[in-house]
């Protein structure tokens, strides 16, 4: 077997540690359950009468065969109670539709607390081409095209007439925040829960709940036609973000030009290699970012940034104030902001992030502004009012 972890046989590791003799007491209990189950099945089979009925139907005596048919119909009536139409089949059909589709398109509506709502149009073409058109406040803000086969992409920003090429050869899956397409194409054939029916937008829909790592999806099918109508996504580690996917179409004609990575004419390039580790934000980017934010404050206090929404609004106002002719400075600031915000917003529940800089005087060496727990650490990383970073135990993070 191929070992993927420094010659470490992971499969055997788990197997060795999983295998243990079954205690006799446990085996006894479980065999008792099997015995009860066996009885249930045998009773249900009516002690073999089903087969006898089928033989009777072949009988040449008309009366016998009519009686046999009657008994069979009645028995089928009983069988039909547990074996009635399986609503899960409709769900399985949708999962299969995604798996086999050569193309599909849909609309995505994203609601995020503190941020403007976002409309996206997703287009996918097998074996691995995707395009996402993002509209904010009715303006086409961003087009993302990804070639998952060659691991390349391009992000086009129409309002700025700029594009960013991405070379994602070494990017691990974790670096794609949401792999929407793969999640759709690997929708399990059986839902975790079959929910009730609900009327949504004037249509009666049947819901199916799928729970996966870090995410819950509710798949809504038309209760009558069993057509896929909507998928709602909720992310367990990211609060206040909800995706609603609608208007699904499968195997529609999608021209290859939609997935062309050639930059549009007249656009300027900004090269960014996603796989370059130096471009990934670290705590120094956070410090630089906060230093920039405070440099713009005339009151000598750290700004109130109690959630991501406030942060975005505050930052946007600062950037808008920079004169257009000062483009080099603007680009430098945008990069500082971009990296700092990426570091800030990537915090998850596990990091236990806090920002409490509001009304704190800039330069206060003993007052913590923000803190978080890095992955794998027992200590908190704390940024103080003088922009120094220290490792501190949670109990020792004190505010005067």
């Amino acid at each position, binding site marked *: 077997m191929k070992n*993927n*972890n*420094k*010659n*470490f*046989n*992971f*499969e*055997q*590791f*788990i*197997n*060795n*540690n*999983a*295998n*243990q*003799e*079954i*205690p006799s*007491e*446990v*085996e006894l*209990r*479980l*065999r008792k*359950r*099997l015995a009860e*189950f*066996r009885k*249930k*099945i*045998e009773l249900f*089979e009516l002690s*073999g009468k089903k*087969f006898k009925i089928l033989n009777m139907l072949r009988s040449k005596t008309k009366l016998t065969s009519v009686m046999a048919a009657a008994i069979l119909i009645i028995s089928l009536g009983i069988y039909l109670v*547990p*074996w009635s139409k*399986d609503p899960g089949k409709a769900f*399985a059909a949708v*999962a*299969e539709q995604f*798996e086999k589709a050569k193309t599909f398109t849909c609309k995505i509506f994203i609601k995020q607390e503190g941020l403007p709502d976002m409309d996206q149009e997703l287009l996918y073409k097998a074996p691995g081409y995707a395009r996402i058109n993002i509209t904010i406040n009715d303006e086409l803000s961003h087009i993302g095209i990804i070639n998952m086969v060659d691991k390349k992409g391009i992000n086009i920003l129409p309002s700025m007439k700029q594009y960013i090429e991405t070379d994602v050869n070494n990017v691990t*899956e974790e670096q794609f925040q949401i792999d929407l397409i793969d999640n759709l194409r*690997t929708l*399990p*054939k*059986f839902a*975790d829960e079959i929910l009730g029916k609900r009327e949504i937008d004037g249509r009666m829909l049947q819901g199916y709940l799928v*729970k*996966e*790592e*870090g995410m819950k999806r509710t798949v809504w099918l038309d209760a009558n036609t069993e057509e896929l109508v909507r998928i709602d996504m909720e992310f367990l580690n990211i609060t206040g973000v909800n995706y609603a996917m609608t208007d699904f179409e499968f195997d529609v004609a999608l021209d290859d030009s939609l997935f062309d990575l050639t930059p549009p004419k007249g656009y300027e390039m900004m090269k960014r290699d996603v796989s370059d580790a130096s471009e990934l934000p670290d705590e120094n980017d956070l410090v630089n970012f906060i230093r920039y934010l405070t440099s713009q404050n005339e009151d000598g206090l750290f700004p109130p940034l109690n959630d991501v929404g406030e942060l975005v609004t505050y930052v946007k106002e600062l950037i808008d104030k920079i004169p257009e002719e000062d483009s080099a400075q603007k680009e430098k600031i945008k990069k500082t902001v971009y990296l700092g915000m990426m570091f800030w917003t990537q915090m998850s529940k596990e990091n236990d992030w806090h920002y409490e800089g509001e009304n704190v005087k800039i330069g206060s060496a003993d007052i913590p502004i923000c803190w978080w727990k890095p992955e794998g650490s027992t200590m908190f990383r704390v940024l103080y009012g003088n922009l120094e970073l220290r490792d501190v135990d949670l109990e020792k993070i004190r505010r005067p």
Partner: protein
Amino acid sequence: MDDNRSEYDRLIKPIENRMIGSVWRITRNPEDAEDAFQDALMTIWKQFEKVSRHPNQHALILKICANSAYDILRKKSRRGKREELHAHSLEYQDSQRSADELLSNKETRIEIFQAISQLSRNQAVTVLMRFVQELPYSDIARVLGCSEATARKHVARARTRLSKILAPLLPGLQKEKIK
């Protein structure tokens, strides 16, 4: 083949030992094993027609067992009952091993299944079917309703995730010779 043979004899009897074995190996606690087993049997009962018509009935039944056991692991994990898991498994230690070996193995087993409970359902069930129930990828793919490549992908992703979660355990164990 005798067409009048009970469906139980056809579907369940040949894999009784594997069903019992896999549920126990995953749950490691008598009450949990019984709960998971009963849930699995209920599911098999409710989906009996589907099970009996499935092209790979035994693999499907084993998957149902793995699924039920996974649900129990998840419930325990959410309630933070590692102490309970730990306490019960103490009763069933192999008395012929040394104390150090026992401690190491018991803790390792707890960590492994705790880690598996943190995987997504698809990944966890695929791992359990592959590593604990030792089913081939073709069977796993068939019961998950996906391609073999997708089933391998689930395992690969699960392996990556498990490696990260179990990283503190791996350096010490890498020194052991795995045959």
